[in-house]
């Protein structure tokens, strides 16, 4: 019967297929999802524009001095700036990348390629996924006991030397704490990248007599590199924006004796601060000295630019590796 209907329609010509009714539900759905996109973008745009406008007084007149200045007690101070925070945040990023990247990739490759698929391996994966959702304050506490103070528990486990090595409340402690914080994220993204390597490539390598480690080195790592890199850099951006764990591991907002240059590694084991800490401090100071509101907004812009630069690097690197992979 259906066939005859179509046959009749065909004989009547193409008019039989013109739209008979308007698709109102479809149109409404499209409008709603478009609106959600616009709302989320608008909120972001307002935030950025507002922040830039607030901080404009600092950024337009003395941007370079602001980048090179240090923590001061008065907002009109000529030497007010974020260099100490930049130093802390930059080195935190570097330490996070240098420690979370190799450990995370190693763990991911092990879980995907070496670990026997058993109940234990699935429990471990579940734990890692849950760790990625643990509040950052908890990691701050862990960092405090593991890297800052010589706590009894970790001393008992033979890890007491860590606190001596980091120098206590230092950039090194902060970087390592945040590395532990982002490690689950790095592992999960790297695992996904490793899992996406086509079976054909793995079998091709094995079929030519490659050992497992040769296969991992020549097929898995190059193919997964874009995904792994993106994951690591996004994790770095997240680490740089964290404030809560830094408060716990002892970032301070005043009384810094030094204002080291970016490549001066001697500051790594000393008292430190970071951009998010400076922002929190200045926002809380604005009641006493309204000029700090402007300074805080300017510091936020600096932090945003830093994070955007890192994300852009991530995207550029990914594109480059993907092109290589063909």
């Amino acid at each position, binding site marked *: 019967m259906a066939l005859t209907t179509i046959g009749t329609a065909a004989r009547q010509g193409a008019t039989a297929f013109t739209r008979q009714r308007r698709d109102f539900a479809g149109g409404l759905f499209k409008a709603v999802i478009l609106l959600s996109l616009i709302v989320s973008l608008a909120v972001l745009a307002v935030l950025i524009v507002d922040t830039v406008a607030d901080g404009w007084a600092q950024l337009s007149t003395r941007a370079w001095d602001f980048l090179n200045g240090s923590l001061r007690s008065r907002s009109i101070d000529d030497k007010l700036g974020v260099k100490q925070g930049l130093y802390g945040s930059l080195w935190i990023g570097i330490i996070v990348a240098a420690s979370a990247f190799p450990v995370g990739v190693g763990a991911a490759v092990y879980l995907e390629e070496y670990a026997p698929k058993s109940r234990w391996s699935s429990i471990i994966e579940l734990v890692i996924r849950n760790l990625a959702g643990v509040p950052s304050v908890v990691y701050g506490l862990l960092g405090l006991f593991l890297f800052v103070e010589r706590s009894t528990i970790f001393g008992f486990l033979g890890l007491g030397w860590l606190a001596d090595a980091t120098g206590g409340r230092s950039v090194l402690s902060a970087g390592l704490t945040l590395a532990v914080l982002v490690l689950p994220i790095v592992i999960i993204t790297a695992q996904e990248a490793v899992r996406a390597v086509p079976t054909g490539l793995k*079998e091709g*390598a094995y*079929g*030519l*007599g490659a*050992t497992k480690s*040769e296969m991992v080195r020549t097929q898995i790592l190059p*193919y997964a590199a874009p995904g792994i890199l993106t994951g690591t850099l996004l994790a770095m951006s997240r680490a740089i924006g964290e404030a809560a764990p830094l408060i716990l591991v002892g970032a301070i907002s005043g009384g810094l004796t030094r204002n080291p240059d970016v490549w001066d590694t001697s500051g790594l084991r000393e008292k430190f601060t970071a951009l998010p800490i400076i922002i929190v401090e200045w926002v809380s100071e604005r009641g006493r000295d309204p000029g700090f509101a402007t300074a805080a907004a300017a510091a936020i812009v600096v932090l945003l630019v830093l994070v955007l630069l890192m994300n852009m690097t991530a995207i550029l690197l990914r594109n480059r590796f993907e092109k290589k992979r063909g």
Partner: protein
Amino acid sequence: MTTGHDTRLDSFNDTGLDPFNTKGGRPEDPDMTATDQRADEPVLDPAAREGAELPTERTVIFDVEELNVYYGDFRAVRDASLKVHKNEITAFIGPSGCGKTTLLRCFNRMNDLIETARVTGSLRYHGVDLYHPKVDSVEVRRQIGMVFQKPNPFPKSIWANVAYGPRVAGLAKKGPAMDDIVENSLRKAALWDEVKDRLDENALGLSGGQQQRLCIARAIATDPDVLLMDEPCSALDPIATTRIEELMHGLKDDYSIVIVTHNMQQAARVSDRTAFFSVEVNPESDTRTGILVEYDSTQKMFSNPADERTENYVTGRFG
């Protein structure tokens, strides 16, 4: 090493040879006795094969006896026994799920990559038990090359693809020696003339048929003894398929080839011997186990098979 293991160790190597040691190179033929001198005779032309029985005393490469393959509790192949001969093309045909690919993947221990896979029975390569604990699967795969169903060139240059095997095997490093290996392998795979001017280009830029010939060149480059081909033409168009089939005829002078194919005509065109596999459904567990129904010269299999199931299959009555 426990004493209980010693009997197994004896059977590891009847011949006193150790083909998978680190010395490299091909193993000597353990069966190369006086009666086996015919193995050195030129291989029969496929055209001249009509009506001629294949020499049965030709050197045996693989001797499979009562082989069973399990994935966990599931038995994928049951009691397969057959002999693969030197410088011949042996075809495995049969419907989907009949275990032909599974059996092929035992020949270079590719099934090891599947955690639950388990093999019982005996699979001897030049008299050596391939599944003996002392046999290293990596060494096995260096001597027994494989070409896969879907062309799987590495996302690297054409040159790097061919050089991969020799490099991991330590046969050569970058330089004139490796360039020679790459050129020879590409020539043998009938691809040299098409790619000689663009060896540095990414292999993924080649057509599907070229990619598959590159994969054959890549497999040849490690100088294997045997080439296993797992439905090498199933992703290719008829013209590319013809080129691969022509290539296989040329390759069997130097290599022994085992090919799995869905395509009966292909088996009839290229192979010297054909094994027909079928599926046995277990009514209790509703699982499907592959069984070897019949194995004989291709000519006999397609003209006068002994088993009715083979006849039904080759005449197109099922499958």
